[in-house]
């Protein structure tokens, strides 16, 4: 919706207004406006805002990480991954 500016209707899209939207000027510094920060890690744009993604659909994340604080999980996988009759 347009707004009244200097006696004329502005659609908010004049060159000056676009420049003002695209730049925040402080003294001699020019800063681009920050991207909006999503509080939830996953959002799907264009379909009506944030949408929770089920954990099982999340991407696997592989990294260097100590197993010491996660020993209970590691033990469970160790047992399940290697479970079966031993021939050793």
């Amino acid at each position, binding site marked *: 919706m347009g707004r009244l500016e200097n006696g004329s209707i502005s659609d908010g899209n004049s060159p000056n207004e676009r420049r003002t939207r695209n730049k925040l000027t402080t003294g001699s510094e020019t800063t681009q406006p920050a991207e909006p920060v999503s509080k939830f890690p996953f959002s799907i744009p264009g379909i009506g805002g944030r949408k929770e993604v089920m954990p099982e659909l999340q991407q*696997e994340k592989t990294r260097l*990480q100590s*197993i010491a604080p996660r020993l209970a999980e590691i033990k469970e996988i160790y047992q399940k*991954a290697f*479970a*079966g009759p*031993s021939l050793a």
Partner: protein
Amino acid sequence: MLVPPWHETLSDEEVTQRLNTTMAKSGFTSFTSEKGGRIVGALWYDTPSLDDLEAERRKPLRNFAADLQEKTGIGTLVWKREVMVHPDSQGQGIASSLRGAFLTHLGEKYPTGVIVLTRMREDNSGIVRLAEKHGFQKTGISPSISKTRSFSGILV
């Protein structure tokens, strides 16, 4: 149901003991794969000295590694231990992802090269073929009391 022959049934105490022994090894380093905040796979390695190799696998492996060091001029030994993936997440590339992270890490940490050792049961033919495909060579060393055989690879 057919159970692959390289599997073992391990008690909670056995697993705890193995993990504690493993984590105490020199240069122990681990990688994890997570999905939805849960660990679904892990890989770890350590950096044994020649003395460590001899203590664990007797003189033949020490001599094998020492020969490799002399031939290649590469001193660092890395022993890749377990690669494990939760059965519910197997077949999804988790093990490959872990190996990839491991190799990238080694390349960054040891830019002049490293000798990678690993061992596996020789009746686990799938994993043996995979190791050979990735450039591992059989050491020919197999302790008589088990079906595990040592392999070595050189990453330069």
